[in-house]
């Protein structure tokens, strides 16, 4: 047990020297009763203040044009986000559905809270280079800080303005951003054989399903093996 707080009295401290900082107001504060006014002046100013307040609110009531409300679900067709708005991370795919991610994992390393998990095929049999297996993005932890987009050396990531993403189950917030597991568009182009290139593009589920936090086990859900590519 301690004694009650002995708040140091002001006498203990000599007056503080504020130097040149102790200064006058820029604009004197408005005050109705504070200054030495007569009763009539106080009443008049109070009345004026109240009436002007009432008129201010009335002026908005009077003019329905001042209503600024957006009708969200109804205006869905015309609603557009700003082009830089960060609503959802997406991996850019070209017209042929090929992405440019080399699985260099810079974004994964620099992501502040490990919202990006990249698994890769260490050596693709056709190209001989590492190829992306899964680009897992966890929307449930993502803070949309944009660092992944900024640091990507190949500019394959972008933030889209898509914002309608409510779900009933938090595990539905984990995505595979890549549409296929396999080499990048550039690497595929270098392959002579079109058939061989096609064969490298293994289709990928968009929905990743449960991702255990930091590679541990979730109740009854098997541990995600980040080293070995899971068979698709």
């Amino acid at each position: 047990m301690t004694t009650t707080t002995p708040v140091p009295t002001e006498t203990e401290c000599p007056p503080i020297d504020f130097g040149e900082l102790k200064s006058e107001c820029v604009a004197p504060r408005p005050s109705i009763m504070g200054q030495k006014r007569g009763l009539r002046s106080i009443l008049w100013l109070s009345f004026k203040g109240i009436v002007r307040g009432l008129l201010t609110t009335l002026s908005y009531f009077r003019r329905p044009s001042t209503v600024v409300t957006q009708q969200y679900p109804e205006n869905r067709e015309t609603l557009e986000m700003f082009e830089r708005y960060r609503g959802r991370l997406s991996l850019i795919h070209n017209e042929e559905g090929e992405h440019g991610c080399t699985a260099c994992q810079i974004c994964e390393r620099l992501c502040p809270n490990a919202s990006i998990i990249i698994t890769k095929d260490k050596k693709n049999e056709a190209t001989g280079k590492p190829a992306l297996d899964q680009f897992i993005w966890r929307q449930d932890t993502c803070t949309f800080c944009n660092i992944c987009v900024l640091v990507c050396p190949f500019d394959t990531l972008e933030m889209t303005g898509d914002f309608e993403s409510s779900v009933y189950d938090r595990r539905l917030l984990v995505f595979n951003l890549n549409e296929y597991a396999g080499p990048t568009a550039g690497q595929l182009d270098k392959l002579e054989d079109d058939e061989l290139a096609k064969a490298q593009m293994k289709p990928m589920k968009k929905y990743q399903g449960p991702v255990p936090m930091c590679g541990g086990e979730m109740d009854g859900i098997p541990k995600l093996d980040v080293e070995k590519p899971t068979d698709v």
Partner: protein
Amino acid sequence: MADALLNQLSLTLSVHTSDVFVAPAMSLADRASRALESGVWGAVLYIVIGLVAVLTAVSVLGLVMSYIERKVAGHFQCRLGPMRVGPHGVLQSLADGIKLLFKEGIEPGHGDKVIFIGAPIFSITATILLLAIVPLAPGIQVVDMNVGVVYIAAVSGLGVMGILMGGWSSNNKWSLLGAMRAGAQMISYEVSLTIALLVVVLFSGTLKVSEIIESQQQGWWIWRGHGVAIVAFCLYVIASTAELNRTPFDLPEGESELTGGYHTEYSGLRFSFFFLAEFANLFVFSALAVTFFFGGWLPFHVGNYEGFNSVMDLLPPVISPMFWFGSKCATLIFILMWFRWTFPRLRMDQLMRLEWKVLLPIGFANLILAATVVLTGLYFFPSAT
């Protein structure tokens, strides 16, 4: 038995529908009383009509007023208010009502349960009793006592009981604080309310509500009161805002201070009774103001301008009283809402200072002045006595 009932009913209807035109100014209670002469069923019919009418009025007023309040608030604030439940959200209140009916009612574990359930009874009963005396049009009034104004002053104090009991029995310190605030506030402003009404009683010389309206045939008291009535009206508006616990006097339920105020612990339907009473009271107090100061159902006339007055009288006699009463009432309600959505809240000490040091002395002075005016016969309108 059934035959007798039918006979009585048809007899009552045939006799008393003509009453509407014969004695248009009779209240429902008086009619029931008269019907008793020819048989008990007629009286029962009137009683049932009265009960049903008031019950409906309370519920409908609660729903409609809360919808209007939300819409008006929205437009004051550059937004729209409820829009998605029904066209322009007209079914919003209905949805709220149904939801509240199907919502769990929680009882505090250690509170006094009887008082806890009893508290809304007082609030609702006070509202119902007040609604009963509101004259919507000649004859459309449930009770019309000869001590009407005293009745109003007496009954309006009943609501405080509900709030005090609710706060006390909630076993919650915030509720208790809200209830104590409500108690101190509402009884204080009750005095001013009564004194403001006394001025009108002085002018009209009667306590009966319908007669007070009739006494304004020559001009509404707010005009004819020689300035005294305007002061009385201002006192009435301020005091009734305080009685209604609306901003700037919403201290008992000040959300930013007392979390929920006296109804913090109430949920579901129990809470909705307070809600209902609050909104119905909003109507009641505006209606009473209209009755006392703005000539109730009487149309707007200006002195001896016959042409203007006849334009005002153009409405058919059945609609006219309702229209005039309704429009006056709506204006007052709008003003109360306007206050609510503009002003900040007072502090407790300021509230008490306003009543006891400003309004009450003004009220007394005004009362004496009114008495002098009445005695000396200083009226604007020559025809008035």
